[in-house]
Each structure stands twice: as structure tokens, then as C-alpha cells.
């Protein structure tokens, strides 16, 4: 484990953010929407560790509850993307032919849009809100899973043990689930870990623009955008949420990189050298 510092550091950062999200009601001390007009824009104090916003709302509480939104949307959208992408990739790589062609053209179509633009277009149509943001983010991410799983399924379905299973009459479903799917788990886990980082940035970006989860629900992106109004005198209002987003993304990126190196030591050698 100590040979993979990214895995350890990333894992600790991810664990910290997940704990923050899960334990928010107990860690936060204040309610994230509780206003305290006597303590507006107070700056970090003993009572308010990260200060307060222009309504006197505790920034630490808003960050802790914001973590719930970001981490939940991150995990759920990536889970949806991984599920859809894995099924599509398996079917395309295993059955090949017209099915492969059709599915991969659909993947190409999704890849034809710049990622954030596709997410924005979907949120524009579906409207804001947690579910729609999750759908938009998943719509951007699933193609990566489909492509990687397909390439693995193409190779695996030619292996001797698969051919042998087919010869003794194993069903396609059984072969796909018992013999092809297990080989995809490692790469899918790596992609998923890196994907959560991307999803957190995408969710925060959409919230930043005002198209994500709507206020008064505390999200990192919206708190950051709102803080811009006070940039001149109270820059920390924007700085703090940005730091939370960055640390989370950094954690998932490091953890994903570390996981890849750990699962595939040969690849790690060539990328690190």
C-alpha cells in the first residue's frame, strides 16, 4: 500500500468527504439555513469556523450539507452511467455485428457534443433539480464506460474458456455475467472513481450557473457563485466552497490514479517510469 501514495492520500481525502456528507447533521452544529443577522459576513470565528454569509448562515454547515448533495449526485450519476455503459459495452463487444455498430454509433453521437454543453442542453430541457442534474451528468459519463467495457468484451469473448463454455452449451447470458463481466470490474472501478470527480465538478458547475439544485438547498456551486457578489471585501465566501470542490475532486482523481496503478502494476510502470 505504501508503494501507492496516491491511493492512500486520495483514499483519505475521499473518506473525509464521504464522512463529512454522511455525518453532516452531527458535525455541522448549526442548521445550514438558520439565519443570524447579528453575525452577518463575520469571517472565521470560534463560533463559526468558516465564517458566515450575508444572511449570517454558518458556512461550515453549508459546506457539510453541500457535501451531501455533491457526493450523492456524484456517486449516483456515476453508478447510473457505469450500469448503462457496462451493459451497452458488454452487448456491443460480445454480440458484435449490427448490434455493436448501432450501439457504438449512439456512443459516437453522445461524444459529438462537448461534455458540459451536452449536460447544459439536457438541464435546459429537463429543468433544474437534483434528479435532472444527475441524469445530465450520467448522460455525459456513460460513453466512457461503454467504450472501455466493449474493448474488454471484444477480447474476452475470444478467449479459449469462453469458446469452450459456448461449445458445452452455456447460455450467452451466463457467459456474459460469469466470464466476461468479471474482467471489466477493475477498469470500471477505476473509471468510476475518476468519474465521481468529474461528476462533482459538473454538478458544481451547473449549480454555479444556477441550473443545478435550487436554493435554499446549500450546494457548493451556488454558494461559490453567490459569494462572488462579495468578492471585494469577503473573498473567503467564494474561496471556501471552491476549496471543498477542489479537495473532493483531487481526492477522487488521486484515488482513481492509485487504484489503476494498484490493479495494473505493468501500466503503472510505463506511466510513472
Amino acid at each position: 500500500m505504501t508503494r501507492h501514495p496516491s491511493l492512500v492520500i486520495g483514499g483519505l481525502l475521499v473518506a473525509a468527504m464521504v464522512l463529512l456528507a454522511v455525518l453532516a447533521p452531527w458535525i455541522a452544529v448549526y442548521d445550514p439555513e438558520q439565519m443570524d443577522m447579528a453575525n452577518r459576513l463575520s469571517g472565521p470565528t470560534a463560533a463559526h469556523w468558516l465564517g458566515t454569509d450575508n444572511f449570517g448562515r454558518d458556512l461550515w454547515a453549508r459546506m457539510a450539507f453541500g457535501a451531501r448533495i455533491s457526493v450523492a449526485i456524484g456517486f449516483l450519476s456515476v453508478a447510473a452511467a457505469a450500469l448503462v455503459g457496462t451493459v451497452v459495452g458488454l452487448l456491443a463487444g460480445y454480440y458484435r455485428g449490427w448490434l455493436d455498430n448501432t450501439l457504438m454509433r449512439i456512443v459516437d453521437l453522445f461524444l459529438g457534443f462537448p461534455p458540459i454543453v451536452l449536460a447544459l442542453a439536457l438541464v435546459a430541457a429537463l429543468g433544474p433539480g437534483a434528479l435532472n442534474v444527475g441524469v445530465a451528468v450520467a448522460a455525459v459519463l456513460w460513453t466512457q464506460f461503454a467504450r472501455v467495457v466493449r474493448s474488454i468484451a471484444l477480447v474476452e469473448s475470444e478467449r479459449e474458456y469462453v469458446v469452450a463454455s459456448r461449445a458445452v452449451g452455456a447460455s450467452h447470458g451466463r457467459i456474459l455475467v460469469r466470464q466476461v463481466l468479471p474482467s471489466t470490474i477493475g477498469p470500471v472501478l477505476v473509471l468510476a472513481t475518476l468519474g465521481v470527480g468529474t461528476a462533482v465538478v459538473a454538478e458544481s458547475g451547473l449549480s454555479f450557473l444556477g441550473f443545478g439544485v435550487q436554493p435554499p438547498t446549500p450546494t457548493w456551486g451556488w454558494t461559490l457563485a453567490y459569494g462572488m457578489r462579495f468578492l471585494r471585501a469577503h473573498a473567503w465566501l467564494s474561496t471556501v466552497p471552491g476549496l471543498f470542490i477542489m479537495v473532493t475532486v483531487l481526492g477522487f482523481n488521486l484515488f482513481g490514479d492509485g487504484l489503476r496503478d494498484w490493479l495494473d502494476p505493468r501500466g503503472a510502470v510505463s506511466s510513472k517510469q
Partner: protein
Amino acid sequence: MLRYTLKRLLLLVPLLLGVVVVVFALMRLVPGDPAVVFLGQDATPEAVAQLRKSLDLDKPWPVQLGRYIANVARGDLGDSIFRGESVMAAIASRLPATVEVAVAALLIAVLVGLPLGVLAALRRGSPIDVGSMVFAQLGVSMPVFWLGILLMFWFAVELNWLPAVGRGESLHHALFAALGGRPGVLGESLRHLALPAFALALNSAAVMSRLVRTSMLDVLQVEYVRAARGKGVANRRVIVTHALRNALLPVVNVIGLRFGALLGGAVLTESIFGWPGLGQLVVTAISQRDFPLVQGIVLVFALMFALVNLAVDLVTAALDPRMRLEV
């Protein structure tokens, strides 16, 4: 090469057709009657009926789709609901600003990422290498909208060196002005461009430095590079002519993908810096639910993305003939 170019161009047609169908389908995702949603609950029934007619919503959807494709093929993207101008006119007036900031960011990303990656590979394990890896990891993890705000705070608010928002004269006008003896105009344009372009560039610079480093390390191990070294070719020549040229191939390839990220990032950067481009326009259009305008801008973004990727593929094929066999 001509054959390859024609093939690639032909492959672009079904992709673009698919993109147009997806953009058309977006309006079908709008919950409820789109005309009511776009105009709001207070709209008069006449206004709603008129909008339904102008958006072709009163016709069966295959007819709508056929007319949409035919209109797009003619360059007619419909009319903006709230701006009193055609979608095409609104886009045409904003497109140059977006291209300007995206190209500037791409240039900065290459100018920073390339030398950093090469240096890191040549001095493997040195402080430069470690520094470049830290830069890459932070750059990839830093959201563009946060970086934008930090840059604005430091350079515009605290130091007062650069303007916080807005755009000067367009760069090509400014260049002509400078040639005509008014260099101040160009300076002002560049000062406005600096912050949005740097904010947008960092992420791509980080990705590129990491990629160049890996690619360079791989190439330095290859036999022809070792052979060149072995027969006594000067180190600089080995690096530039033998290693770098080949290490750049994957970098050229990734520029296309980065351009997509830059276009997406431009939406956020333009909103922060009040940069009057397509990104800022699409955010306003979504807020106002000006759907024809949203559709038009999404279409133009996808078209630009496709064309840049095509250009990148053609350049890669020209540099490496093996690529031409892959289509």
C-alpha cells in the same frame, strides 16, 4: 491522403445528421407544452398559439423533424423567442468572442504544457518533474469557475492590474489598429483577454503536460532514439528531431478532445468574466427558456467540436501515414 480526407468528410455527414436529430429531440424532453413553458404561465392563449405555430409544434413530429433538418441545412436556425432577431444573427455576433478566448486558451495550454512536459521527462525525478506532476494534479482538479474567481480576485481586485470583466476590441480589429499606429487598442484587448484565457487554459495545460511527459518518456526508450544517441548525435538534436516529433503525435490528437473541454469551460469562464461570447449567451438563453436559441448554440458548439476533431484527424494522418489505414 485525398482518399482519407474524403472518407472522413463523408463520415461527418451521418454524425452531424445525428447531432441535429438529438438537438431537435431536446425540445421533446421539455415537460408539458413547450410553448407554455417558454412563455410562462401568464402568456395569453394567442401568444402561445402563435409560438406553437412558429416552432412547428402544431404539426406531427415527423413533419417537425423533416422541416427542422431542412431548415438547419439551409442555415436557418429559427428565431429567438425573446431577442427579436434570428438565432443565426445572435450566434454570429457572439461566435468570434468565444473562438478568440478558446483559441487563446489553447495556445496558452500548449505553450505551458508542452515545455513543462518535455522538461519533466528529460529531468525525471528532479524537482521540476515533481513540480510538474503536482501542477498537473492540481490543474486537473481545480474547477475552472473557481480558478476564474481566484484570478479575478488577485489580479483585478487586489492588484488592480487587469480588468475584471468585459472585452476590449475584437483581437483582429485591435491588430489592425496596432498596425495603424494605435498599439493601445491591442494592449487593452489583450488585458481583457488575459484572465478568461488563463482561467480556461490551466486545466488543458495540466492535461497536456502530463501527456507530453508520458509520451516523451515512452519515446526516449525507443530504439531509434537510443541508436541516435549511440552513434553520437548531439543531445539537443536527438531530443528535438527524434524524440519530440514523435512524442507530439498523441498530443496533437488530444488537442481535439481538449477543444471540447475548452468550449464547455468557455460557458463558465464567459459567465464569470462577462465575456460576450456564445457561452454567456447560452446561459442567458437557458435562464430565459429561449429554447430555439439554446438549440442553435448547442448545434454550433457540436459543429465546431466536430470540425476541430476532423482537422486534428487530418493533421494526425498527414504526420503519421499509419493512421490513414484506420478508416
